[in-house]
């Protein structure tokens, strides 16, 4: 039981840390991705209508 407890504690810390870290990265770099997506969609629409 002790081993399982240690295993889940380590897994929980790793899961929480990776969740927080990836959230931070996505918050910063996702905004740039979003702008690019909107720009590309606008270009696609212009090409479709042109």
């Amino acid at each position, binding site marked *: 039981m002790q081993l399982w407890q240690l295993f889940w504690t380590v897994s929980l810390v790793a899961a929480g840390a990776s969740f927080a870290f990836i959230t931070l990265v996505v918050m910063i770099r996702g905004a740039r991705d979003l702008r690019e*997506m909107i720009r590309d969609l606008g270009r696609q629409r212009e090409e479709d209508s042109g």
Partner: protein
Amino acid sequence: MNFAAVDWIIIVGYLAVSLAIGILGKRYVGNVAHFLVAGRELGLYIGIATLAATEIGTITYMYNGELGYKYGFASFAAALISGIVMIVVGRTGFIIGRFRELKLMTVPEYFEVKYSRGLRIVTGLLVALGGILNMGVFLKVEGEFLTIVSGIDGRYLVAVMTVILLLELTYTVLGGMVSVVITDFIQYVLLSIATILVSIYAVYHAGWGQIVAKVTTTMGEAGFNPVVNPKFGLTFLLWQVLLWFAVHTCWQTTAMRVFSTKSPETSKRVMTWTGFIFLGRGMLPMLWGIAALTLLGSGALNGGIPQPVVNGQTLAPIDAMPAMLAQILGPGVRGIVVAGMLAATMSVNSSYLLGWSAVISQDVILPIRQAFGRGPLSSGKQIFVNRLANLFVSLFLMFWGLYYTPPGAVYLYLNITGTIFLAGAFVCVVGGLYWRRANTTGGYFAMVLGAAGAVIPYFFLGWGENVTGFAAFGLAAGGLIIGSLVGRSRAVQSPETAAAD
């Protein structure tokens, strides 16, 4: 009422901004590919945000919280499996790499490319049935969360959930995937902040030492070791591995993100990084459930677990986590957390509305129309059919969500309803991509037997979830193999040929 004025300002502000931005997405929708797969323009980071937001909802927090409350740390095994399998799928590109190369818009579309139009329609019907039944319990469970945390009178539950559904429906119908992706980004940020805040509050108030001690005294080794836990065991763990491979590759809402990425390579990276988020997506709310057991688990034993008690009233285990949040979160923080949960709710529901209605329109209505000799619809008309399907799904959700209560743990109900189509679809996709002899006869056998294997044992024979899950996948695999060996249907094309077509 548990809400202060500041909480209401945060909530209303979030809803207004979310709706306005969602409606803005409409201006970027020019054709059906924009509406369903955002013109395949998703980059890595926005891809991670939309995939994570799609698969993290209030429903996710609720069922994981329930698992944590009932089964302690042993429930972490389900979260660990879901994350690791997703990372493996991302790293190897298993199924998703080839799916993205084929430039699909829905999972059943693959069945016409590889098998036949008839099988696409059958698959579309089963995908829509399983998906909508699966989503059918979302509103009720989400409504319970909101009423418990906010303290809104339960009599207003239907009105509150109707308003939320209408908000989601408005921007999904207008802007399709473009609106969903834009709002998903905001919603992902908000729900992640709420997740981290709640985790800190839960551990702070319950105390790590007390959490471990409570699980030890109430559950013993079964609270830590999933192999000896009577609800789990090796069969459950194996079934979870199989199920999560199917979910991460063939679940319509997940697959739509794969289809929407810029390239197959991007889809693999999105899947890999979201796999790490999936570890926290499961374990953190399970931890909240265990914290709720620690703080509120003082009632009579039910199945060996003390029932949650709040102000002398006994609650269901699934309601323990929101009841705990209502107690431990202060003004302002409660508003941020509920806004985060609303964000989670809206991101999941809008994506699921779009996903299942896409299947109804693209894989049922349009192919049936073509089978009757009618010509293909213009892109504008296809979008119109999609919007009608959105309305239909919403109406069904209101009805089913209010009148049906799933038996047992919600997580397991969701697993079984998903298995209705996942068993057959996963087997057919794997067979179609990796086994040259798979053919249409085998495909029909797999879809029908997979669905029967999920529905009959669980809903009519009262079998357990693990056995039902294995029965469904086993029957589907047997059906594909036997049907393909005895049948004489059209041979399966290679993916490269299909893509060229």
